[in-house]
């Protein structure tokens, strides 16, 4: 493909990079990433993916913008209150970069639609706010051989890992959702807005690395950070042979949504 003069200027700082270059930018423009949840994590992630020139960005979210979202969900603005998050996000992405084709899904991600939607994308970015959907994304990706970035935040803490087929999955580390009441929801516990920005931006970086094939992904390890001490550590996890979805004798062979209360990110 040939870049237009405008594209050459827009992506000049990528093209200069040895590890991205012309070839990498073409991969980004041909890349397809689905952002699940246009919330705290999905907002910064979608903005950076759009700016980077990821050619197709899908956004799935069934919610509308609420004033309590605006403290951290930076793709939405005050005039967007009560508008569907996917529409608000699509408008911002198109303003940032007209090269990007945005596909919106104003619906919940469910066992019924997940495989059809995921099949259209190269990489999935989990920006969800609840454990059942996080496990559903993991299981759908493991069973269909799709790569994804897991992310979670609460208070001043964040964690993220990247799954690619053959490596440690989310269920290898966390067998099933925590029991009700053990983990407070974000509406109970709170979250520093910028923590969402840090984590979502790391997830976007993983997506960009995946699409361009550069660097080392966060596979087989969790990156965990605390904003108060501003400390980051990376914890290695091997694959779990007893993992219910990717282990030797898997008990999960079809998709099922786990029961858990939701948390409003």
């Amino acid at each position: 493909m040939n870049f237009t003069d405008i594209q050459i200027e827009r992506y000049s700082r990528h093209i200069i990079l040895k590890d991205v270059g012309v070839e990498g930018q073409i991969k980004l423009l041909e890349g397809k990433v689905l952002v699940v949840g246009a919330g705290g994590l999905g907002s910064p992630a979608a903005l950076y993916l759009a700016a980077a020139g990821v050619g197709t960005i899908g956004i799935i979210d069934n919610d509308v913008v609420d004033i309590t979202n605006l403290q951290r969900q930076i793709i939405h603005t005050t005039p967007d209150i009560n508008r569907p998050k996917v529409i608000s996000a699509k408008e911002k992405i198109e303003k940032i970069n007209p090269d990007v084709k945005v596909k919106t899904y104003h619906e919940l991600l469910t066992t019924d639609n997940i495989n059809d939607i995921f099949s259209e994308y190269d990489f999935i970015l989990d920006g969800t706010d609840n454990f059942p959907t996080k496990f559903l994304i993991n299981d759908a990706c493991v069973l269909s051989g799709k790569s994804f970035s897991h992310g979670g935040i609460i208070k001043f803490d964040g964690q993220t890992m990247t799954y690619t087929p053959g490596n440690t999955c989310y269920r290898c580390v966390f067998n099933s959702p925590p029991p009700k009441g053990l983990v407070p929801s974000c509406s109970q516990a709170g979250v520093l807005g910028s923590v969402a920005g840090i984590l979502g931006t790391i997830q976007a970086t993983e997506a960009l690395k995946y699409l361009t094939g550069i660097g080392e992904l966060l596979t087989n390890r969790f990156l965990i950070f605390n904003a108060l001490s501003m400390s980051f550590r990376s914890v290695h996890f091997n694959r779990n042979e007893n993992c219910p979805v990717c282990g030797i004798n898997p008990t999960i062979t079809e998709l099922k949504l786990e029961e858990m209360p939701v948390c409003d990110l």
Partner: protein
Amino acid sequence: MATFNLDITKEHCPMTFVKTKIQLAKIAKDDILEVLVTEGEPLENIPKSSTEQGFEILGIENLHDNIYKIRIKK
């Protein structure tokens, strides 16, 4: 092995190297790109950046006044 030409005498940093990289991406391995540059930043940085990114500088020649030709092998 073919030789290609690029004139970046009207460009400014970083577009000088951006345009050079785009042209280098279009040609085949072992092809040669002859880049016309002006004295100063491009003359200093195009050879340096090209070498850092794995290309070979075959020679630099002063054509006239402040115009130079850098020969880069992919």
